[in-house]
């Protein structure tokens, strides 16, 4: 018997898992349209590579990964792209994001695909296949699996396969392990190979005896070495990666630390299954198992094409008329969907139909009485009452001192709070405010740098211009030795600009030089005027000469008139 470890706190909410485990996984009906978000994973949004009106095949990439931390998005079935636009998505904000809408043609025609033998394929190639297949963590974190299946110089001893599924209502992993244990373990074997891990520990909460039995049987039948199925105590949030790693290995992975640094990596069982489909069959991630439960006639697990609108899915389970919300995920950490039109994504493990009866609105919040029930159940051993206090008063520095970012938002604190304070919401608020401030600080830093560079640039340009002028002048002076030599310039060009006296002296010298140059120019002009005859008076026709004479006569006459009328005898100056 393996020694198991404990994590602090935890709660025992009613599990409500029996409702949806009575029947096997059913294939969901082909929906009338698929709304496929391009951002279904952690990292950069995929870039659409299809056009509106284009016909796509099942499994065809319609969004290519953008950058290293990204993943591919595929057409879940064959059909026509009808729109690439902003649609509501499953996000806490209830804001739209870029989605590709696909109208299925009903033929479900596959793109050409084939698997590889993972033992004969280089690891980089396998990781590339995972990336191209859009495999991401299906436990809810949706982190690209190709990046996680890389040990990055750290020696990985243990691969933890997460089948704990601690959140109430959700049973998709339970059913997957019951029905598809073989391929799940084969996928885990591929991941183990990629990580060079010594052992695979499969943690399943002990409220799923059927799944434990099925997995144990599959381990034995397929003769998997280094694999062990371990029943862990049912305790929320024991299915959190950090908590499960702690329970199985005793290793604590702090916030902001990669578990690989501690020699552990953790994958969800569904991710392992998808890995096997992607590697051995060349099938990208096009569908997933979704538990449809809550306020429905017959709760059940469905194999659902990604992008299936939630409304069309829940109708198949018989959503009751008093349903007033769709919750994606569990009741502890789930997202309240902004609309029934939202498409199922890779993160959608469960849709709970909610009603006021099932999830009554929370009682009005009372002040915190510091009873520390929240601290008693916090799996990160934080002081939720203090975090709440600081978040409420917008004292974000203090929240960070009290380790706000170690909070995994599991909701255990808010679950037990007798004052019904929406604690998690306060933490999320504080976190997003802190992120916002960090973004602002970063952009301010960028702006400061750009501004300083600009000023430097302007200064430099000024200087360069001055130098250029000086150089030109020098060249000009060198070409005209007849001009009297300018007074020596007292200061070097890079003289201290603060020295105003020096500057004034320089200015005087410069003025004197200028005067000299002007005088020289005037003298030159006079000289020219005296020596050179106007060229346009040569070779004139007699008619022109007559004309000139006439004009000269008129001018003379005018001069006479003017001198007669004027006080002085001088001719008018117009040179």
């Amino acid at each position, binding site marked *: 018997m393996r020694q198991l470890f404990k994590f602090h706190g935890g709660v025992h909410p009613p599990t409500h898992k029996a409702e949806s485990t009575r029947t096997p996984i059913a294939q969901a009906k082909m929906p009338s349209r698929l709304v496929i978000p391009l951002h279904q994973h952690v990292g950069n949004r995929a870039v659409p590579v299809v056009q509106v009106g284009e016909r796509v095949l099942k499994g065809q990439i319609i969004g290519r990964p953008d950058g290293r931390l990204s993943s591919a998005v595929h057409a879940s079935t064959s059909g026509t792209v009808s729109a690439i636009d902003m649609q509501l998505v499953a996000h*806490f*904000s209830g804001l739209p994001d870029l989605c590709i809408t696909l109208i299925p043609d009903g033929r479900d025609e596959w793109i050409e695909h084939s698997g590889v033998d993972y033992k004969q394929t280089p690891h980089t190639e396998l990781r590339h296949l995972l990336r191209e297949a859009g495999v991401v963590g299906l436990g809810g974190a949706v982190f690209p699996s190709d990046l996680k299946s890389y040990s990055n110089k750290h020696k990985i001893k243990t691969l933890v396969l997460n089948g704990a599924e601690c959140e109430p209502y959700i049973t998709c992993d339970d059913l997957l392990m019951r029905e598809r244990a073989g391929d799940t373990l084969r996928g885990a074997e591929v991941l183990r190979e990629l990580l060079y891990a010594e052992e695979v520990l499969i943690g399943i909460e002990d409220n799923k005896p059927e799944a434990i039995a099925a997995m144990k049987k599959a381990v034995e039948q397929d003769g998997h070495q280094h694999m062990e199925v371990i029943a862990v105590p049912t305790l929320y949030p024991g299915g959190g990666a950090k908590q499960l790693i702690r329970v199985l290995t005793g290793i604590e992975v702090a916030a902001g630390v990669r578990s690989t640094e501690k020699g552990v990596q953790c994958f969800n069982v569904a991710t392992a299954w998808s890995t096997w489909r992607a590697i051995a069959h060349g099938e990208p991630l096009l569908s997933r198992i979704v538990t449809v439960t809550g306020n429905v006639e017959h709760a059940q697990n469905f194999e659902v094409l990604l992008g299936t609108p939630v409304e069309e899915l829940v109708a198949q389970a018989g959503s009751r008329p008093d349903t007033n919300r769709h919750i994606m995920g569990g009741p502890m950490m789930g997202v309240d969907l902004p609309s029934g039109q939202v498409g199922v994504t890779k993160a959608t493990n469960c849709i709970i139909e909610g009603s006021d009866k099932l999830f009554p609105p929370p009682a009005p919040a009372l002040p915190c009485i510091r009873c520390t029930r929240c601290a008693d159940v916090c799996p990160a051993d934080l002081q939720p009452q203090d975090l709440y206090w600081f978040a409420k008063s917008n004292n974000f520095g203090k929240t960070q001192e009290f380790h706000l970012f170690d909070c995994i938002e599991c909701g255990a604190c808010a679950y037990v709070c007798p004052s019904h304070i929406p604690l998690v*919401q306060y933490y999320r608020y504080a976190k997003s*405010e802190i992120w916002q401030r960090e973004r602002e600080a970063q952009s301010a830093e960028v702006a400061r740098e*750009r501004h300083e560079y600009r000023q430097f640039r302007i200064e430099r340009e000024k200087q360069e211009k001055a130098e250029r002028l000086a150089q030109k002048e020098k060249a000009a002076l060198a070409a005209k030795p007849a001009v009297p030599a300018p007074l020596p310039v007292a200061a070097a060009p890079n003289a201290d600009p603060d020295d105003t006296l020096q500057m004034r002296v320089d200015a005087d010298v410069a003025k004197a030089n200028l005067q000299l140059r002007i005088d020289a120019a005037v003298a030159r002009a006079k000289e020219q005027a005296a020596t050179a005859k106007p060229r346009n008076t040569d070779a004139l026709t007699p008619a022109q000469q007559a004309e000139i004479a006439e004009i000269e006569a008129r001018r003379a006459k005018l001069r006479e008139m003017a001198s007669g009328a004027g006080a002085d005898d001088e001719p008018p100056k117009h040179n």
Partner: protein
Amino acid sequence: MISALLVMIGISLLLGAVLGYSAIRFKVEGNPLVEKIDAVLPQTQCGQCGYPGCKPYAEAIAKGEADINKCPPGGEEGIHKLADLLGVEYKPFGEGAAPKAKAVAFIDEQTCIGCTLCLQACPVDAIVGAAKQMHTIIVSECTGCELCVAPCPVDCISMQPLGEDIGNWKWRYPTISIVPVAAR
């Protein structure tokens, strides 16, 4: 009596000399307070404070020449931070100096004549273009200072408020508490 006086004078001279020496010897280059104030300012370089940029405003505050409530882009929070940093009372924004929603400049490319006047006005070089070439704003670098709006001879620059999207969306302050929240 005399000796006591002499001793006192001696001590004061000595201490004065030490102080004078250390003032020269340990002189702090630059003003660290200016840096600290500058770090709080939002670096929009918009000049709404009446100074040509954030650094000059910071210098003015450090010298005690400027009030701390002259920076609308910094918001109320900026004033609070400055008040904390300088140990002075918080001061609300004056009339008409309230902060606006964050916006970025937008050039109507049909109207732009490529005069480069906005390029010269932009304090962070966030406008790309050349003479007789159409100009455009680098949105990610624009601080929303509005300094480019006035110089444009054909009025083709407008400020477009930055909308909320999934990337910059923030959780709201929880409001379902029935007890009036005193701490805001």
